[in-house]
């Protein structure tokens, strides 16, 4: 059974490259309500290509909400109007026939536009390289139950670890702050025993790089939590603030000035 198709007006940000000035271009599409947002863009790109026009550049990979690659700002909201999903999980049935939809790239100084709706999020990689890891020696695998971790701690660490690094928190924040992402990464390691040796060094290093990359400061609007596809809680930001303060107050000579 074919459901009734929707006629939509798309206003999509087109930008040749990171140095050029972009603008919105209008497209009229007719799409099945069962299509995902990205499938709609695929169809539109097929049409553009068949007319010999440049397709719209946008990113996607797994298309099941776990890789964190896709991310569009749809009518002012990263990942669109439905909470707790990535752009790839947004279906056109959430829009009405005749709607106008504005599609913009994530906007932040630290996320420069590469082309159209694609942004460079390698700033996140740089933050992770600064401390988003644990150092462990190779050797025989330790016995699975030799390190005791209470269930609540394991669950909380897992909640933090469910961050997919999509960057919607930065896109949603009025200050383009990366604190939700960074705090999720710091917490998922810092909560577990394996993350303890580098706990305070990690927070100092990651915050230092985060600040250098030009992300803004958190002002606790909590827009990030509302727009995060994984519902990462701002309580991790509070946790990161505590760890950072503790790291700075500690008497041990810090290697990160």
């Amino acid at each position, binding site marked *: 059974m074919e459901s009734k198709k929707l006629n939509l007006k798309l206003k999509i940000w087109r930008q040749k490259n990171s140095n050029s000035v972009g603008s919105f271009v209008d497209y009229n599409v007719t799409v099945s309500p069962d299509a995902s947002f990205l499938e709609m863009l695929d169809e539109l790109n097929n049409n553009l290509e068949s007319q010999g026009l440049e397709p719209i550049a946008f990113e996607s990979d797994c298309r099941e909400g776990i890789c964190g690659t896709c991310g569009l*700002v749809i009518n002012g909201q990263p990942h669109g109007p439905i909470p707790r999903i990535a752009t790839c999980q947004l279906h056109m049935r959430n829009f009405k026939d005749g709607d106008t939809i504005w599609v913009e790239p994530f906007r*932040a100084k630290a996320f420069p536009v590469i082309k159209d709706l694609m942004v460079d999020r390698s700033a996140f990689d740089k933050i992770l390289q600064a401390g988003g890891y644990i150092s462990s020696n190779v050797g025989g695998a330790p016995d699975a139950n030799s390190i005791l971790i209470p269930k609540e701690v394991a669950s909380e660490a897992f909640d933090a670890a469910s961050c997919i690094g999509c960057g919607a928190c930065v896109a*949603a924040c009025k200050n383009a702050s990366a604190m939700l992402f960074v705090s999720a990464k710091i917490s998922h390691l810092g909560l577990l025993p394996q993350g303890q040796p580098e706990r305070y060094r990690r927070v100092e290093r990651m915050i230092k790089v985060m*600040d250098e990359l030009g992300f*803004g*400061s958190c002002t606790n609007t909590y827009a990030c939590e509302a727009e995060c596809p994984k519902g990462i809680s701002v309580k991790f*930001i509070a*946790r*990161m*603030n505590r760890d950072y303060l503790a790291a700075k107050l500690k008497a041990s000579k810090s290697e990160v000035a």
Partner: protein
Amino acid sequence: MDWLKTFLNSSIGKKFLMALTGSFLIIFLIIHLIGNITLFFGPEAFNGYVKKLASIKPLIRVIEVVLFSAFLLHIFNGVRLWIENKKARPVEYKINGSDKNSSIFSRTMFVSGSIVFIFLVLHLGTFFWRFNIHDPMNLASQHKYYEIVTHFFSYWWYVLVYVIAMILLGFHLNHGFQSAFQTFGLNNKKYTPFIKKLGTIYAIIMAVGFASMPIYFFLIGGAK
């Protein structure tokens, strides 16, 4: 002290300074409101209160210096954060969806703070200046502080500025109160819902409390 400098210039450190100075101002406001309530009990009560403060002048001067520094740090740091945060997004969104993911109070901290600042200049320029430095009406020298206050509260424009500023102060505090806890790292499911409610109640009490005095004296037409 390098670590302190690094800390205070980091994103979290700047926030921390906002929360520290903001919390100090939050406590100051409570004491200020309790003292000012004496206005409702007539000239003897209020003038007596101000005279009592004058009798412990050295201590009051110390508190004034700390208070003034807290305001300066809060304002300087707030403006600095605001500028830096604007720079973190050089190209604005065409469609701003922030009303769908955050409260109006949280998004207008700079505006509400700036209006409170304008009010502060007017407030100090009239009352603080006349009480402590120079009073062209020669009332302060006779300890007639109540008469100075009620004189200003008889001007409609003065009362209007007061009331608008106090409403915006309420906005500022409604977000600021719980925000300071979050910045200090105090967020958990046991206390945070209570802290948010307490912040709203505090903000309402401060806004209504401080606005009630100019409104009352304007309505009864000056001094009681």
